[in-house]
């Protein structure tokens, strides 16, 4: 039973560390802000969630201490992770950060220009 619990805990924590490393490599390798937002908003969310789940299982199965605060933390990360990625890329587009030169199609540009003209922002 202890071995099974250990396997579960180690699985979750190493998965989380793996995804965090992937998020860091993605931030380093990807060419522009918008593609980096992909790596940051997805991999970092799942990585921290898995580490928290591993900590939860450790305290529950090994120390017999059921801590629902950690589960609430997982829930909040789940809700706020994607919103963070969305807000960062949207505000940088409006502030004028240019997408990478290899970007194939841009439906967003006319929309943002129209919006700025309506609200008299340069």
């Amino acid at each position, binding site marked *: 039973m202890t071995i099974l619990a250990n396997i579960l805990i180690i699985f979750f924590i190493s998965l989380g560390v*793996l*995804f965090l490393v*992937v998020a860091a*490599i*993605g931030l380093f*390798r*990807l*060419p*522009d802000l*918008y*593609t980096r*937002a*992909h*790596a940051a*908003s*997805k*991999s970092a*969310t*799942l990585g921290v969630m898995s580490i928290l789940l591993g900590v939860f299982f450790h305290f529950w199965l090994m120390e017999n201490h059921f801590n629902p605060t950690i589960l609430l933390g997982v829930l909040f990360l*789940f*809700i706020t992770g*994607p*919103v963070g*990625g*969305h807000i960062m*890329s*949207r505000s940088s*587009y409006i502030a004028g950060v240019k*997408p*990478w030169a*290899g*970007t*194939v*199609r*841009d*439906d*967003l*540009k006319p*929309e*943002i220009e129209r*919006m700025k003209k309506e609200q008299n922002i340069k």
Partner: protein
Amino acid sequence: MSFQILLNLFLAFLWMFLSSNYSLSRFIIGFLLGLALIIAFRKFFKSRLYIDRVWSVIKLSFLFIKELILANVSVLVLVLRPRLELQPAFFKYDTKLTEDWEITLLSSLITLTPGTVVVHVSDDSKSLYIHVLDSNDIDETIDSIKNTFEKAILEVSRS
């Protein structure tokens, strides 16, 4: 829907008073019996059964978790490949969802899908502007959003 839940709780308490035994197991038995009664009398409610909606919420959350894991595996493969093969693009997606909470839920689902991040929601909230990592299969992405996420959200919100 909330009326049905309240009625179900009321029936559970009624069952506890009838048997004058105030324990959790009595409450659960009363809740299940009340649920059976509500299902038996479903013709008298105008909205559909709340247990049906709870079931579609559970299905939606499993979809959420599945998409999150798939998205991470695809980012992992993309980032660790020796040569980056990216064709990023911004495209417009017209949604037929109307309520604000539905659009919020759809955008966070899309953000957790492999290779897509919502960048902007138009002022009339009729279209989403999505940044995609690989523009070769935009049509496929649109189809998958329409058939899985929008359908699941409509399933939850329909009365």
